[in-house]
């Protein structure tokens, strides 16, 4: 692991220990009450869920253009994080919605496109697992669709009728709510970088393992 990994991991761990304290001290929201505090983990998870397919799509485009294994490994790592953060977002969202909207799920543009994005992440991983030879290129093509879906997810709340809060709520947050939110965003971002580093390390080790098996066979 790189030298910065351990200090960054300790810092990230501390941020996740401190974050519940900041969240507990933040005020409840006037209309939703206490359940609003799910937002402090839901929104950063959702942002990482948008970041991961962008990294996956960009790396896949680079892989298709340059055919370099390094880009493919980065795309593969990001696809797994797409599924992870997508799951966290799609579970915490309904838990919040149940109290805030009175329903677990609505088939509006934001929720549906998020579900589609999550399923594209799964499609990528399933292709890589069971697709056989050439599945890396096929999966890279799928990843492009996943990346194209991201701006649609983001702007969907501003253009289509939905009960999901629009993107404008973030800049309008008062300091008492904004500070814990941005703290959590940085904690999740750091975690994302750490997980990407670990996952890339795993892919590099697998590549080395394959090369060793080939060397032993020869």
């Amino acid at each position, binding site marked *: 692991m790189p030298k910065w990994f351990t200090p960054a991991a300790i810092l990230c761990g501390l941020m996740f220990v401190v974050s519940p304290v900041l969240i507990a001290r933040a005020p409840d929201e006037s209309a939703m009450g206490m359940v609003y505090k799910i937002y402090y983990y839901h929104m950063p998870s959702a942002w990482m869920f948008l970041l991961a397919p962008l990294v996956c799509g960009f790396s896949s485009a680079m892989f298709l253009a340059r055919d370099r294994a390094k880009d493919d490994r980065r795309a593969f790592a990001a696809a797994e994080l797409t599924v992870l953060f997508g799951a966290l977002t799609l579970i915490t969202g309904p838990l919040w919605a149940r109290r805030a909207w009175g329903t677990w799920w609505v088939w509006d543009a934001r929720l549906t496109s998020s579900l589609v994005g999550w399923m594209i992440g799964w499609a990528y991983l399933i292709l890589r697992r069971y697709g056989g030879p050439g599945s890396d290129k096929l999966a890279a093509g799928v990843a492009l669709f996943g990346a194209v879906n991201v701006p649609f997810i983001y702007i969907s709340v501003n253009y289509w009728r*939905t009960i999901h809060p629009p993107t404008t709520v973030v800049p309008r947050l008062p300091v008492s709510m904004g500070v814990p939110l941005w703290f959590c965003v940085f904690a999740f971002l750091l975690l994302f970088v750490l997980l990407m580093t670990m996952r890339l390390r795993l892919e590099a080790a697998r590549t080395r393992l394959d090369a060793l098996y080939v060397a032993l066979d020869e």
Partner: protein
Amino acid sequence: MLLSMSKGLTVVRRALVVGAALLALAGGPALAAGNQPPEPQDEFRPVGNSPAPEQIPAAPLLIGAYIVVLGGLFFYVLSLSRRLGAVQQDVQRLEGELKRRGRG
């Protein structure tokens, strides 16, 4: 024969009209209500002096959400560490074997 067929068609038509009317009366408002979600909040405001009314208990949902996130992340890190450890162990084993063969 033709007269009885025409009567039969009229009965079917009437039945369809009545059925459609009943469906509209029973399901229409429900469907319309289902298609019109409440207005979204365009701003989050801190609670004032009066606490918000709690219809559905929030605490289990809130605690559940935090357990899902922290638990999910913990298990993913655990799974990643195990996978990484296993692959690195295999790499070391094969590297050792390759060295031994090189010497042999």
